[in-house]
């Protein structure tokens, strides 16, 4: 027996007209944590689908040797039976079922007469939850615990299936630092227990931190596999994009003008829990040509702040004042916000940003549709729409054969560009970007930073909300820190360090009114 648990040799997977994987080789040693990175669309997910049997044996060429024997998986069930479990980025949990029910979903613990043995189900679930460090009642519905804990439920579910090779697709993308830390610790613990892990991630620092070896895939090819000790962020980025990114953040002229928007005493309560203050007397402003960053941990109220400002799309009992160019305005509906040239790009593009049933051009025109309508009845000029969409496709470098292509078929980075295009078409003066680079690859991130620079160069005001400190420090002129719904600091970029920002982001404001 070799010490490799998995060898994927010369895997080639073709779709009509496209070669998704071209002679890809992946070797995973028994008991290691093996990271795979690559730009979105490089073929990582396709490779994992080949491995787990989503693309059954025979639809690809090459061979998979798992645990010393050639494997022919025809479905996910086949691979799971052999101890290969894949956890997708979008978690597959049923929100109204309990943690225990989710753990044993499809694999129920039965007693006499094939009825479910609830005592055994909950007891075994509690044991699995203890192993993954999940401190909850097994009967709690999955929908009420946070994303970080849901991730742990997924891992407990994998453990219940006697997992030997655990595949995690972007496990920490939606987690805050604490939850990420916990998850990575758990992976180390599983490693000690002999579970091999394959982890796909965009977070290079984290990946170098945890992996034993790293494989980089680009455009359907394996670029290289390196031991962790040889990996540096620069080397990974070079491999991923196929070029040197001398800087990850494009430089720009700082040319800050007059104040465009000022928010005073902005207070927002939770929409359904009376008396719970989500945003607490927030004051902030942004100038023309300025990028203002809002840094806060998960749950600090970043999205709540942005969405309550944008047409009161979040919260209740909202009080406070908003001034645009010195004049007080009411932005009570999204429509009014758009009319005042405010745009908001949501952190969750699939949920809040896109009509996934529609094509690129329909999505791009959807917020600024008024510009395409004739006065009166409101005929939409579809030819003009096509022209506009083509312009944004070119300007934003959206990679798609046609603007009539459905957005559901685009990669994450390209979807994000469609959402940006949609808001740019409303010609905003104030652009609020909520986690604009979440879940997209390094190349697309750079393009989005460049776009932000273009916007401020044209005198627009940009507010960027981000949980990634390097990003927020890389692109902002000034940073507000948000903690427990209150602004705890305002730091000019010259004085910003990761340490002092993190300290402010974790400060609890003493006088919560």
């Amino acid at each position: 027996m070799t010490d490799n648990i998995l060898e994927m040799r010369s895997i080639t997977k073709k779709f009509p007209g496209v070669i998704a994987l071209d002679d890809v080789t992946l070797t995973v040693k028994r008991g290691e944590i093996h990271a795979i990175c690559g730009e979105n669309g490089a073929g990582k997910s396709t490779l994992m689908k080949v491995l787990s049997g989503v693309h059954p044996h025979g639809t690809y060429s090459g061979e998979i040797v798992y645990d010393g024997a050639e494997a022919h998986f025809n479905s996910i069930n086949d691979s799971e039976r052999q101890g290969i479990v894949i956890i997708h980025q979008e978690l597959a949990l049923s929100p109204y079922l309990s943690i225990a029910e989710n753990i044993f979903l499809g694999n129920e613990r039965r007693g006499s007469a094939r009825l479910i043995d609830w005592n055994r189900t909950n007891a075994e679930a509690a044991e699995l939850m203890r192993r993954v460090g999940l401190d909850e009642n097994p009967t709690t519905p999955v929908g009420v615990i946070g994303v970080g804990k849901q991730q742990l439920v997924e891992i407990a579910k994998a453990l219940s299936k006697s997992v030997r090779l655990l595949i995690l697709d972007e496990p920490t993308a939606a987690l805050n630092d604490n939850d990420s830390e916990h998850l990575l610790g758990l992976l180390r613990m599983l490693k000690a227990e002999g579970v091999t892990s394959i982890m796909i991630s965009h977070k290079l620092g984290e990946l170098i931190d945890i992996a034993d070896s790293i494989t980089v895939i680009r455009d359907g090819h394996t670029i290289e596999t390196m031991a962790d000790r040889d990996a540096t962020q620069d080397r990974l980025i070079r491999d991923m994009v196929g070029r040197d990114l001398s800087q990850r953040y494009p430089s720009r002229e700082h040319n800050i003008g007059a104040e465009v928007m000022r928010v005073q005493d902005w207070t927002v309560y939770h929409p359904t829990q009376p008396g719970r203050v989500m945003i607490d007397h927030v004051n902030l402003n942004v100038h023309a040509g300025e990028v203002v960053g809002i840094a806060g941990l998960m749950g600090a109220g970043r999205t709540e702040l942005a969405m309550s400002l944008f047409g009161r799309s979040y919260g209740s009992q909202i009080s406070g004042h908003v001034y645009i160019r010195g004049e007080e305005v009411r932005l009570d509906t999204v429509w009014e916000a758009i009319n005042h040239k405010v745009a908001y790009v949501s952190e969750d593009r699939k949920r809040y940003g896109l009509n996934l049933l529609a094509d690129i051009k329909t999505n791009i025109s959807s917020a600024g549709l008024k510009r395409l309508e004739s006065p009166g009845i409101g005929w939409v000029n579809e030819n003009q729409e096509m022209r506009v969409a083509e312009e944004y496709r070119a300007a934003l470098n959206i990679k798609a054969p046609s603007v009539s292509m459905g957005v559901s078929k685009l990669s994450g980075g390209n979807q994000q560009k469609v959402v940006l295009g949609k808001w740019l078409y409303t010609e905003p003066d104030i652009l609020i970007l909520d986690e604009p680079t979440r879940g997209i690859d390094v190349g697309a991130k750079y393009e989005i930073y460049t776009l932000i620079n273009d916007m401020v160069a044209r005198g627009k005001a940009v507010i960027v909300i981000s949980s990634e400190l390097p990003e927020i420090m890389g692109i902002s002129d000034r940073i507000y820190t948000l903690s427990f719904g209150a602004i705890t600091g305002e730091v000019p970029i010259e004085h910003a360090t990761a340490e002092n920002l993190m300290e402010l982001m974790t400060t609890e404001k003493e006088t919560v009114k």
Partner: protein
Amino acid sequence: MSLTQELDHKVSVTPSLGRYLLDSAQKNGILLAFAVVVIVFSVLQPMFLSPSNLTNLVLQYAYVLILALGMLMVIVLAQIDLSVGSVIALTGAVAAVVCVRGGAPWWAGVLAAIGVGLLVGLWQGFWVAIVGIPGFIVSLGGMLIFRGLAQLLLDYKSLSPFGGVYYDISNGFLNGVLGGSGFDLFTIIIFAIAVVGFAVSQWRSRMAQVKYGQKVAPLPAFIARIVVVAVLAMAFAWQISQNRGMPIILIILAVFILIYGMVMGRTGFGRHIYAIGGNILAAQLSGVKVKWVTFWTFVNMGFLAAVAGIVYSARMNGAQPAAGNGFELDAIAACFIGGASTTGGIGRIGGAVIGGLIMAVISNGMQLMGVSQGVQPVVKGLILTIAVAFDLWNRRRSVTVA
């Protein structure tokens, strides 16, 4: 997802004629299905294509098509309206009370029915859009409420006859206006004008597309399409012109289909309906006035249900308490056969019309063949199920291909 970047370079962009035909056959599966149904019935029962039967077909099923127009908008919005059958009974009853019992002129009955339809729409729109109760529940309540009101209004008895102009709405013809021997010249001319109008508008939109530098269908295919449409339309016109001429209801129907096709396909309001059905949260955050659009869509459904109520009561020449029973299901089925998605966001007026025609042709064909009463709903139910299954399969396949 991982393929899109590469698609750019690897897929050729100019469609050949063959490729274009294949693509459009895939996109227009519903038209093919319609053609198959028509051919099957005309082979099984030669009477099917006779002048008198084609005329009958139009008169008998106009109400389904009118309902389907409004229902499609509701379904694309990811809602449903189960009350339209009862609204048909109620509005027909109102018209009968005004005209038959009250002796008022025909237009008073029409206005009263439409007024009641709008009130119904306002009522349901309020509960769905403003209060936020699902349309399924609101219209289930409405189904009972309006049926009961119709029964009370008619005192559980039918009320007839309308006669006169009201009767002619669904049974009248414009015949012999311009003469013609053995056929009605007026009908032929109206259809000829419509065909020319169709060809001109197709040509203009093609020219505009060329001007904006877009890909267009190959010219032979473009011309062939117009020729096929023209030949079919004129053959239909020739057949009905030999019977009683141009049915008034056909003109009304054509105007409605044209208007609603344009509203859904070409206006901002239509776009907003698709946006809400596709992703209500994204629509809301894009400045779409979700409540408002939902409200007006239901008001419009009330209006169209009233129109259908008028058309149906005119056709029956009277109002019955049980009128319109189950019609909501015909309209819903028409939309789904026509390719609308059960989860909203997808569906076209043209599809709903063809779906309605398929239902009409099947019902009519089976009646002509003397298929027994019990078999007819079985066949219709099977066709609905298979049509949606086929659509699902077709969509999955196109996703995997892309």
